[in-house]
């Protein structure tokens, strides 16, 4: 089984590889130490003293704080609270009119009576962390709850 080098995985995470190179990696077996290596690379990049437990998505991590609590933290340092709660509850929300702009025009645009387009921003660095397209009245979508205490933590 292939074990990709740390340098290669770092380039992958930073988006520095060509799509051909990414596809070559995707066709191979998953390297067994990948999860641990990704955590190491991100830990080094961010320089946090508290360990990262999971990379939730771009910019967001679950971190174990010194007091034992596990929180969602943005790479800018802003914290969103307990990882079991939806981090969107602590984000800034902007509801964009789906007809806004010149990307989707006329009948290609979504109907604002049917859909809402919610943008979620980090209050710390103003990065757009997620965009939801949901029916009016739909609760915030909870994207991902990691099983941190599961049997297989590898």
């Amino acid at each position, binding site marked *: 089984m292939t074990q990709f080098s740390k340098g290669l995985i770092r380039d992958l995470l930073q988006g520095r590889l060509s799509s051909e190179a990414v596809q070559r990696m995707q066709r191979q077996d998953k390297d067994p130490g990948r999860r641990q290596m990704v955590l190491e690379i991100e830990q080094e990049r961010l320089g946090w003293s508290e360990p990262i437990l999971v990379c939730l998505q771009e910019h967001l991590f679950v971190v174990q704080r010194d007091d034992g609590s596990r929180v969602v933290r943005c790479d800018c340092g802003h914290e969103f609270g307990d990882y079991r709660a939806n981090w969107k509850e602590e*984000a*800034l929300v902007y509801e964009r009119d789906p007809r806004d702009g010149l990307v*989707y025009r006329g009948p290609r645009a979504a109907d604002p*009576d*049917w859909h809402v387009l919610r943008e979620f921003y980090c209050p710390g660095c103003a990065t757009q962390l997620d965009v939801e*397209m949901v029916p009016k*009245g739909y*609760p915030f979508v909870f994207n991902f709850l990691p099983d941190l205490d599961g049997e297989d933590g590898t």
Partner: protein
Amino acid sequence: MTGDGGGFGDPIERDPGAVCRDLQNRLTTEWTARNVYCVAMDPETFEIDQAETELLRRARRDERLHQGISASEYRAREREHVLRGDLPVPTARMYRDVLRFSEEFRKAFVGFWDLPQGWELRDPDAWDEEEAEATTVEEVAL
């Protein structure tokens, strides 16, 4: 209706060079390059203006901090629509079905919007106003 999702990643973090290539390959438009990806470039030569791109992107972040409201404020505002059943008819029908069939969804929905006990979504197919109101009578009593 729409066939699209929310997309992936923050457009203002996309490599300006990649946006430039998209434009040259006619995969995006000048408007989108400037207003969505916040990339400044010469439309004739496709040369990227790094300094202006940086400015556009910083301005977009400031704009977000101004236009974004806290989730609790947003929820308080939207809750009123849900509570009154002020929703498009097909959407209200969909919710009424799912709320009846899935206890799990009901719990999540009622919990998220902090709805009163026994709350029922106003029936958009009720024959008259009185009948529609009757479905929310418990809410009124609270």
